[in-house]
């Protein structure tokens, strides 16, 4: 397909590959799905890959000697190869989990609960998702470690001077989100990883909102751990990825025990399987790994650079369109170069829940709430916001529907 980065992506053509976007909406009109930061829609080829797996190759993996079991194992492990390749990470360091939340919990418990000591410090940021906050609070409570939070500037960026001051000799883990699900901020994770490593700290990058939307190179970022989830990147729910430095995975004790993750089991104890399987206890989400692999190939075919370019365009269009809505306050950066395509906003006199409900009546799906970032909401001085988020299938039509329905919404609630 030539140099994919040079040919602009055609979102209208891509929409046709997503059955839910192509289907007529009850009541007529297009579905304006602007909640891809919560979960993406799924292209037909991902649905087909999962269906075909069950129809043609269903068997348990890594067990049977028969042909079907070998075929199931091949398709499952091909999913791992694809996930590893997408983020330029070695396959033995690529562990399947249930989601990104479980991947972070795996590190928090298998590493943190064993290695952290009283007075050790875990550095997070105020814009972390609850999934990268609560696991660390749990292990801190157990070990006596201290959780510290890097503040966010009024523009929605990390306060890098403050972060520099927070990371020190007592820091054992710096866990930071790559792209904020609420503000869209793209954080300088490579720089943060270098700062943390200079103090001998481990690093974790939550790439849940970056991997689906832009090229992400785990090796270039250089973090010890990088996590992401399948369902936000055109793949199924029920599968996430822990991409960790193989040496760390070898040193860590297992998280969950059971079948598959062992080398030998005796009544005196057990020994562990090689990585990555050491961290995959029990029958894994096989069809989901197959679906994730197909989602990766889909993203590769579209081209992560082209997706990023399209979303920059959509972020720009959304910010311009929202500026036309009277009484609207936008949170986060206004510069599409420095942000992803998740845009949070408030409408004067209309609660985000009511925005969400009203927009639904116009076929526009946005998220309303705290977006699992309550510390950030408090820092912004709001209880909740509405959030519109774009993806590779978002069109100008969606953006204009958002604008028009918001203008109408404000009139409906008598706030105008």
């Amino acid at each position, binding site marked *: 397909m030539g140099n994919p980065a040079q040919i602009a992506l055609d979102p209208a053509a891509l929409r046709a590959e997503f059955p839910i976007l192509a289907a007529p909406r009850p009541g007529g009109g297009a579905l304006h799905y602007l909640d891809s930061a919560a979960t993406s829609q799924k292209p037909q080829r991902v649905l087909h890959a999962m269906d075909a797996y069950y129809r043609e190759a269903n068997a348990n993996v890594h067990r049977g000697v028969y042909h079907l079991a070998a075929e199931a194992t091949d398709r499952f492990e091909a999913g791992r190869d694809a996930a590893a390749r997408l983020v330029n990470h070695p396959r033995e360091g690529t562990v399947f989990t249930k989601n990104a939340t479980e991947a972070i919990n795996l590190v928090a418990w298998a590493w943190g609960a064993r290695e952290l000591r009283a007075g050790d410090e875990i550095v997070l940021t105020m814009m972390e998702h609850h999934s990268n906050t609560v696991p660390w609070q749990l292990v801190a409570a157990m070990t006596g470690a201290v959780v510290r939070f890097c503040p966010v500037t009024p523009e929605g960026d990390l306060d890098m001077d403050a972060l520099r001051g927070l990371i020190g000799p007592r820091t054992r883990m710096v866990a930071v989100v790559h792209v904020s699900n609420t503000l869209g901020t793209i954080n300088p994770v490579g720089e943060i990883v270098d700062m943390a490593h200079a103090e001998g700290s481990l690093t974790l990058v939550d790439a849940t909102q970056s991997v689906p939307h832009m090229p992400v190179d785990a090796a270039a970022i250089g973090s010890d751990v990088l996590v992401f989830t399948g369902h936000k990147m055109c793949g199924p729910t029920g599968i996430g990825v822990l991409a960790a430095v193989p040496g760390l995975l070898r040193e860590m004790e297992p998280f969950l025990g059971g079948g598959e993750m062992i080398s030998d089991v005796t009544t005196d104890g057990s020994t562990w399987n090689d990585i990555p399987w050491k961290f995959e206890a029990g029958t894994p989400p096989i069809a989901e790994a197959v679906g994730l692999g197909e989602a990766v190939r889909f993203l590769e075919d579209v081209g992560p650079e082209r997706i990023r370019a399209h979303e920059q365009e959509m972020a720009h269009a959304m910010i311009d369109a929202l500026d036309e809505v009277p009484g609207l306050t936008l949170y986060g950066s206004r510069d599409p170069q420095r942000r992803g395509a998740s845009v949070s906003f408030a409408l004067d006199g209309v*609660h985000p829940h*009511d925005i969400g409900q009203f927009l639904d009546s116009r076929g526009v799906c946005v998220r309303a709430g705290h977006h699992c970032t309550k510390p950030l*909401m408090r820092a912004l001085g709001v*209880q*909740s916001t509405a959030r519109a988020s774009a993806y590779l299938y978002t069109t100008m039509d969606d953006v204009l529907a958002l604008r028009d329905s918001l203008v109408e919404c404000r009139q409906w609630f008598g706030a105008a």
Partner: protein
Amino acid sequence: MGGLDDLYQQLILDHYRNRRGRGRIDGASASVHENNPVCGDECFLDILVEDGRIADIRADGDGCSISQAAASMLTEAARGRDLDDALTLVEHFRLVMHGDAEPDEDLLGDAVALEGVARYPVRVKCALLSWLALRDCIAEYRETTAMGG
């Protein structure tokens, strides 16, 4: 659009724009603070109990039109009732919100307009926030008075 009009009846929008019973009570007999984990909305509810009756009830906090209208309607429906009556009222409203009872307009007053919320499961929590706060508030009042507090 039928769905939207059904949910947001004019009476609801009226209570949202012109809140009744809003604020706090100095020297309240009991107070509770509840929040909706889905959206972060908060509700502060105060009651003043005199002779076993709710002499005053006020609700404060921010939230969506449904939660604010429900709180406004609650203060009108509950004021003047004795505590057991108020609990009966709350339980009836809870059943209506879960689709398990037909609304009794004599009991609910304006809150009967919230009937349509039952068809929007996510919004049921919004409507119930202040009403269940009253249940907790009465329980707290009884606990503290039982302890002689």
